[in-house]
């Protein structure tokens, strides 16, 4: 039967400072449809969902819901329009009760004689949880008593309880176990049953095929295509998602992997809450790829090898000493550099000038007895800004005003300026435009020739396959497979290992 259009998005654009998150995106979603939205990191899929749900404003364009222009400025107004959003990060507040979280922002429903009737609220919350088949959570408990997955269940219950006309699920699945995902898929089915529409945002293609009726593909903020029903085939989608031919000139050209003899860093039988008996060796002049789903423990391993966390058992050592790493300060002294996944909060100081960011961890090198004249600092900063070709008018500008790619160049300038021989890259090209991506790949190649050891942690398989000499795949905290670089390595082979 012909469903009329529920959601009509016309020429929507949005930019954060210099980075253009969405460029003139238009597409329609029919009533009762489960529409997937896929795209690589930084393709704008989360941005469009937040704009629809009223968390971000849009720069240009019009969004119509059921023919009426949608001007929701906050989540509460969006809810009034029948839109519910499950955010990617944590959407519940730890200090307050589960029931307060579910009805956060609209406690007025339970107000009688000016005061909230908590019993009523808890009962309603219990009902909401039972509605999605969750009975292990007590509404009056504090929310931080429950683990991540249970808190996601609370968010799903909160979204589902309002019987939204349009439910947006933003990359929630990957944080859930199979049991949790079952509950999520059941809830989505329920919404479809009562004629609601679902926007399901993910970057996991198998899950998408199973759940969605149709899928819209975004790449670097631009609308590519929408496929329906049977013509949603994985590799076609992937090609559209990635878009660029898997041409070799994009990544490394040499086919054979190579590495130096010298082991630069060793991880021996490390146990933490996320890692189970992980061991690996990093050689000089090697790019070691580390892949897996985002919660497989590879990010935690990256932090461990920089001394940010301490293992419960086992050791992380560099050559020359068998003493474990105590702190980042020690790691830097031993020549390790770490490029964090969350660039804006950890890898770079936004509210500080480019010069300070570049010179910060090489102050002891630049200065004599701790004192460094501005001239020396400027010379050092200019040298590395020029070497990494960071686009900035003057070195005094704040890093906050730079684009994603340029921020990453500043971070690289910082570590190369420090002369770190071991570099840990955690999703280095996440949310970065193509041009800078390519520059980073070439830089990695150069560093490899100069004998640097690089640990490349990435959620993008093409990048891993294209750049690494050796690839380790992790799953649920364990290293499950090791492959050398070679033409026979394909994405599907690795994906089988990851899931």
């Amino acid at each position, binding site marked *: 039967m012909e469903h009329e259009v529920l959601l009509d998005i016309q020429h929507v654009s949005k930019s954060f400072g210099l980075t253009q998150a969405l460029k003139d995106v238009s597409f329609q979603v029919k009533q009762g449809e489960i529409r997937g939205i896929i795209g690589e990191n930084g393709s704008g899929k989360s941005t469009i969902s937040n704009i629809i749900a009223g*968390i971000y404003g849009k720069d240009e364009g019009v969004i119509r819901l059921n023919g009426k222009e949608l001007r929701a400025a*906050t*989540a*509460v*107004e969006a809810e009034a329009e029948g839109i519910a959003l499950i*955010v990617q990060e*944590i*959407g*519940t*507040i*730890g*200090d*307050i009760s589960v029931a*307060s979280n579910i009805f*956060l*922002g*609209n*406690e*007025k429903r339970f*107000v009688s004689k*000016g*005061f*909230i009737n*908590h019993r009523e609220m808890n009962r309603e919350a219990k009902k909401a949880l039972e509605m999605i088949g969750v009975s292990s959570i007590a509404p009056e408990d504090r929310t931080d008593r429950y683990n991540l997955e249970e808190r996601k269940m609370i968010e799903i219950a909160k979204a589902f309880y309002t019987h939204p006309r349009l439910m947006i699920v933003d990359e929630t699945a990957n944080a859930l176990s199979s049991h949790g995902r079952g509950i999520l898929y059941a809830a989505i089915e329920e919404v479809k049953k009562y004629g609601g529409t679902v926007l399901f945002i993910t970057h996991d293609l198998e899950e998408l095929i199973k759940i969605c009726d149709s899928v819209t593909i975004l790449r670097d903020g631009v609308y590519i295509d929408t496929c329906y029903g049977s013509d949603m085939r994985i590799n076609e989608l992937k090609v559209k998602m990635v878009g660029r031919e898997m041409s070799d000139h994009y990544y490394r050209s040499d086919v054979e992997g190579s590495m130096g003899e010298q082991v630069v860093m060793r991880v021996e039988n490390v*146990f*933490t*809450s996320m*890692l*189970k*008996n992980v061991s690996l060796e990093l050689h000089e002049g090697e790019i070691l790829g580390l892949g897996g789903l985002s919660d497989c423990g590879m990010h935690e391993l990256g932090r461990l090898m920089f001394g940010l966390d301490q*293992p*419960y*058992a086992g050791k992380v050592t560099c050559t020359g000493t068998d003493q474990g790493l105590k702190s980042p300060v020690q790691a830097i002294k031993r020549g390790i550099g770490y490029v964090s996944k969350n660039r804006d909060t950890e890898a770079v100081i936004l509210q500080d000038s480019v010069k300070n960011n570049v010179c910060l961890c090489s102050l002891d090198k630049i200065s004599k007895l701790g004192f460094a004249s501005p001239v020396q600092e400027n010379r050092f900063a200019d040298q590395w800004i020029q070497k990494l070709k960071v686009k900035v008018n003057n070195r005094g500008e704040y890093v906050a005003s730079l684009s994603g790619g340029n921020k990453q160049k500043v971070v690289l300038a910082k570590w190369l300026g420090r002369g770190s021989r071991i570099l840990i890259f955690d999703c280095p090209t996440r949310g970065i435009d193509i041009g800078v991506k390519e520059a980073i790949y070439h830089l990695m190649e150069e560093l490899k020739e100069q004998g640097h050891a690089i640990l490349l942690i990435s959620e993008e398989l093409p990048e891993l396959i294209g750049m690494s000499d050796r690839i380790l795949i992790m799953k649920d*905290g364990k290293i499950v497979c090791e492959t050398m670089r070679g033409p026979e390595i394909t994405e599907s082979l690795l994906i089988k290992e990851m899931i």
Partner: protein
Amino acid sequence: MNKKISNSIVVVMVPIALYLFFLILRPKSFGKINTIYIIFTQSFITCMIAWGMQYLAKMGEFDLALGAEMILDSIIAALLSTRFGFLGMIAGCLLSALICGILKGVLYRVMKIPIMILTIALIYLLGSFGGLITNSAALTISYEYTFLGRAPGNVIVFLLTGILMYFLANKSVYGSNVNAVAGAPGISRNNGISVEKTKIRSLLLSSMFAGIAAIVQLSHGSGVTPSVGLDSIQNIMQPMMSVFIGFVMAQYVNVVFSIFVGSILMSIISNGITALNWSSAIYNIVVGAILLLIMAYMNVAKVYSKKHEEKMSAIANMKEMNMSNV
């Protein structure tokens, strides 16, 4: 349900233990019912101010102008009481509190300065305004207006304020908004809670609670002298300590009750020290030391429990790995 009771027993044990400590040291003077009565009544004023402060403190903001405000409220109340009697006093106090609260709210909304810095500047303004009105002379109120300063007046005012506070903190939409903003301002803002409006309401509320406390304080002491410079901050040190102690115990019992227990603790210590005729300097040291100990314990406990949790899951991983190897 029994978990709640066992928790509150644990919390109540702390002041009882402290009371017994002083009882053993000075049985003659500390054993009487009268002393217990005085400990309670002397904690009322501190507790009411602390109740008013806890909203802002929970959101990480500190209102240092409450001391100067209370003095100004009392001065206006004393002046009006000469002309309009008892009602004039009450109206004067509450009106002045309201105006101060609105002034703070407007200034915060217009200038968006951190509240602590703004209130430091206001201490000069409010404190000296009081001094100007009375041209720095002390004022007193006549005896028949002071029945709120003694039993049963102060007990009634205290209980009414306690009930109002209980509903405001736990049952009102505003109360849950404060808890949400204190927990995560970002998520609250996304869910349509205006962080700024909540803070402005808290500024107003802390002034109103301070106004009520000022009435009881004026009736109890019957005199008020204008404050000079920043000295009025000393007067709100004790309520601030009760708020911090209250927050520590708020994990076990409702925050309204835990802040009351905090002010009782302070009252026991000050009375104990008078009974032992130690110099009241010891009071400052004891209270400061207790606060440091509690805060240190709380932080270390939080860090330790997180580490412990990680250790536990790591051990679980190890067991799991051994099983699969064997």
